[in-house]
């Protein structure tokens, strides 16, 4: 990421193109073979349901096994055939495969277009619900972050958000450091975390099934994918509607979400920062790190 100064907006496309178009990524039998094995194992195990009480249950789905096993295969030493090269190809290929996922959701949206128009107000207004990230700002301040907290809490910190923050504050600003931190941590734990978050929310929050579906469009394709899984399992018979809302709200997040961040979230986060920082700000932990 850091060797692409000033071109953050297209880092993913460039990475993908470099890895996919110039090499022959389909030849990597180790990578695709491993994925096939992971998928077969995951589908054979199937969904595991753990009942906590008579109406609260935890669902662990095959998608959790593949993501955790995938990460484990890369990290665990005895597995010698998955290296940095395979991870790079996987990362590049992933950007292409997102398309298939988006296409499937779009087909469900097209099929249910009348329903989407009926639910228009909820679909559009729930995009404003993403502003709730700003509520985390005081906590970030209490933990000792300074201006980093503006980059950290203005949005979910995925690719488009990184681009906006870097564009506004500059590549080497504390705000950009903050959004990069959220981006990297979100990349590693975001997908796993959100699938558990959704599972728990489905058990404990009595919300409308459509509300869960719309909320899963958080503006990151992999987190969207991980969030829909448990939602589909929780409301059998409503697959098409849930996919339609999840897909459409993800599309909205991509189209208007970025403008909400630029025109509403970032100015609001800065206001919050200026108001809270003198009251609860701590000594910067980032500064002391740099002095070492």
């Amino acid at each position, binding site marked *: 990421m850091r060797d692409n100064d000033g071109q953050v907006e297209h880092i993913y496309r460039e990475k993908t193109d470099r890895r996919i178009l110039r090499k022959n990524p389909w030849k990597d039998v180790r990578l695709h073979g491993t*994925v096939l094995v992971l998928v077969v194992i995951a589908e054979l195990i199937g969904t595991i349901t753990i009942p906590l009480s008579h109406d609260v249950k935890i669902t662990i789905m095959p998608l959790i096994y593949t993501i955790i096993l995938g990460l484990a295969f890369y990290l665990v030493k005895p597995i010698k055939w998955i290296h940095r090269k395979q991870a790079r190809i996987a990362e590049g290929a992933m950007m*292409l495969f997102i398309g*298939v996922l988006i*296409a499937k959701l779009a087909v469900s949206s097209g099929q249910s277009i009348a329903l989407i128009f009926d639910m228009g107000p*909820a679909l559009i207004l729930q995009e404003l619900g993403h502003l709730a990230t700003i509520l985390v700002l005081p906590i970030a301040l209490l933990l000792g972050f300074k201006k980093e907290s503006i980059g950290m809490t203005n949005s979910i910190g995925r690719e488009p958000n990184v681009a906006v923050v870097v564009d506004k504050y500059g590549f080497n600003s504390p705000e950009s450091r903050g959004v990069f931190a959220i981006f990297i941590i979100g990349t590693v734990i975001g997908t796993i975390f959100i699938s558990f978050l959704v599972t728990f929310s489905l058990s404990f929050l009595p919300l409308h099934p459509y509300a869960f579906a719309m909320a*899963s*469009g958080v*503006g990151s394709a992999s987190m969207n994918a991980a969030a829909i899984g448990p939602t589909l399992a929780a409301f059998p018979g409503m697959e098409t509607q849930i996919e339609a809302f999840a897909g459409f709200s993800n599309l909205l997040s991509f189209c208007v979400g970025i403008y909400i961040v630029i025109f509403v979230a970032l100015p609001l986060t800065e206001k919050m920062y200026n108001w809270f920082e003198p009251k609860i700000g701590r000594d910067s932990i980032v500064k002391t790190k740099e002095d070492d």
Partner: protein
Amino acid sequence: MVELIDGSENVSVHGIFNWILLLAIFSVITCIGNYIGYEHPIGDSLVGMGILSLITLIGVWMERKLPLNISSIIYISVIGIIIALPIMPTSSFVLHYVSQVELLSIVTVFLAYVGIGMGKSWNEFKALGWRAVIVTILVIASTYLGSAIVAHIILVLTGVPV
């Protein structure tokens, strides 16, 4: 703009060939998982994956070839929505085959690649410290719960039955 031009130069016939083969591999793995997990016939689900791959290919190609600065995700969404609209002649064909591919089968394969790919960020991740992890978790939770709660309130206010 420089990087835009660079991006489109890379799309040679050879490059598109790479995309097609990758999508083919992805489709085959998905259909195998789809068969094991949901017992959908492999032939029908392969046609379904073929349709989805073709939409992806067109979207990715348009992003790089058209002079507009629009993400492929938006092209893909729009194409997918249009061909599935009930008034379109393509609709029944598309829906029949695409419904043979469960979304979760696609997600399971996709996340296997995500898992392997994210291993690369592991060292950077470890360097960031627990404070940043807490903030990230709270940010993800609040964005999800925020929009779920807003959506729920609007759905209730507009009288949508559960």
